[in-house]
């Protein structure tokens, strides 16, 4: 798996062979034409990012602690740039995505395409990628040395998705209340979480439910839930589905 920096460097190198804008645009057009970037059925209103010039669709799903993105646009040059952005951000961890920037676009001489005045949807698309990453910050990445963790983490997430703050019709995981999940090889699980407000009257109840839900996951022997209020929870941490559910999109 290449890091974001490595992929960006290889794109910059790829572009260094083009001497004029015409070659660059032709390459982008080729990229735009050749890549099936999104499933037709994902091109929904929910995934639509409206620009004045062109429309962009972006869908995201977590997979093994990484985020998988698919996207499309009705403008082919925009689509070409999207495919560059997806090369960089697809299949990376939320933390790496949040830490990265898009300076490589400037390095390959396409900065004007990311200007807000272009209104082509790309700026909003990048913001949405980052929002997805922020919403999934709680995901931790399985790696080869911790087989156990890899096996049970999706189940822990699934279990957390059944826990609700009684006043909000969205589960604690999609609300972005889970900041960290660590599961070691011995089945000891550590969950760092927050609540939507520090003075939440049913705090104990929600923490107890999280504890119980995680403890019920097969293979989990011990659960430790740490309730923190730093960093403070904001609605930015909510998943796209959660925002939709609460009518915030």
């Amino acid at each position, binding site marked *: 798996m290449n890091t974001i920096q490595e992929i960006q460097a290889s794109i910059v190198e790829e572009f260094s062979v083009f001497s004029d804008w015409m070659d660059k645009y*032709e390459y982008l057009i080729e990229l735009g034409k050749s890549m099936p970037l999104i499933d037709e059925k994902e091109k929904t209103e929910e995934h639509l990012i409206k620009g004045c010039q062109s429309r962009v669709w972006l869908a995201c799903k977590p997979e093994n602690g990484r985020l998988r993105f698919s996207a499309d646009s*009705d403008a082919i040059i925009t689509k070409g740039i999207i495919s560059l952005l997806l090369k960089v951000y697809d299949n990376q961890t939320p933390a790496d995505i949040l830490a990265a920037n898009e300076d490589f676009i400037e390095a390959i001489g396409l900065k004007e395409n990311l200007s807000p005045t272009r209104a082509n949807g790309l700026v909003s698309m990048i913001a949405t990628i980052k929002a997805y990453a922020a919403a999934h910050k709680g995901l931790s990445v399985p790696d080869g040395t911790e087989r156990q963790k890899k096996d049970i983490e999706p189940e822990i997430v699934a279990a957390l998705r059944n826990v609700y703050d009684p006043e909000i019709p969205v589960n604690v995981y999609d609300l972005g209340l889970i900041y960290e999940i660590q599961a070691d090889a011995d089945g000891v699980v550590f969950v760092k979480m927050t609540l939507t407000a520090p003075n939440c009257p049913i705090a104990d109840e929600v923490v107890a439910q999280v504890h119980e839900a995680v403890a019920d996951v097969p293979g989990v022997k011990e659960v430790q839930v740490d309730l923190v209020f730093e960093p403070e929870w904001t609605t930015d941490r909510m998943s796209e589905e959660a925002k939709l559910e609460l009518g915030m999109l």
Partner: protein
Amino acid sequence: MEARTLFPALDREIYGKPLIYFDNAATAQRPFSVLELQQRLCVEANGNIHRAIHKLSADATDAYEAGREAVRRHINAPARENVIFTSGTTASINLVASCFCERYLAAGDRILISEAEHHSNLVSWQIACQRHGAALDVLPVDEAGEISPEELERRLKAAEGRIKLVALAHISNVLGIVNPVREVVETAHRYGVPVLLDGAQGIVHERVDVQALDCDFYAFSGHKVYAPTGIGVLYGKREWLEALPPYMGGGEMIETVTFEKTTYAPLPLKYEAGTQNYVAAACMAPALEVARQLAEDPALQAAQREMRDYLLEELTRIEGLRLFGTPRDPERKIPLFSFVVEGAFASDLAQILDKMGIAVRSGHMCAEPLLHRYGQTSLLRASLAPYNTLAECETFVSALRRAIKMLR
């Protein structure tokens, strides 16, 4: 008359190629005379208008009022009281939408607009309607982009007095069709309904005589007729401007003020609260002078028609190109062309043309409902001014063909 030499911006090179500026419907370039006056006033007469006794203020006030007189003459308004300076067409329309609707719009009433309105002549009314429990009545355009005065009459009749105002573009910024505004005004007045004309494009391409048109309000911007941005005009019939409540409160628009009650300044100052963009307003005089010269030069007018006919013919020849705004009477089309090309998305075309030094507009043109009507989300628009040339049109057509080829 050599129109190009009046406009220094046209000498620019873009990415090493001579600029071809075909986005005139968005904003026009400014002539030397405007730029010079702008600079001179900033240096020699920068004093706040209508307020002080000192010389700078007096000179600025004179220049400002000279701008108003130039506007009055250009549109043949009866008096200076009919000419309100605003920040632009949008502000002018919002003024009427706010003040007219406050006084005359009640729940169940309607404002009639057309399907081809710019968002500024649509959203302003929508907001006013929402505020007063009223609704928009939308006059459709046909496939060619034309409105039907008969349909207008049918709607006015059916509304039985509930339509309180008709707001219509003189010329649509997307379709480039001159609407039959004289007929619309005459029809609306037969039903006692006042008419506001959005003249953002009309002021550029038509000879506007507000008394001959008999419209109740006419709104336009300075920057589309060679003046600076940030200045616009609302023409209103005196009886309306007297009857409507004030818009913004502030300095200049008052007569006497106490904490209990304020009496308002007479027209036009009643609607000019706060420090005005007096430099830009003064620049309306040289700008409209240039507009008049360009419009009265028979050779330039013939050249404009030639460019229009050339582009109409050449664009129609491009395979898969669909043009919007094709009136039955071709003389009602201004040199403004909005279109889509199969297999070549508008913003992609605009981006490639930009690299070739050609400035065109792409997107929804601030007229989303009209684009929906034609099943589109984005168009490409080339809009010409009298300073454009046939040679530029030829370069544009071959560049467009090349860009399409790249994308297909």
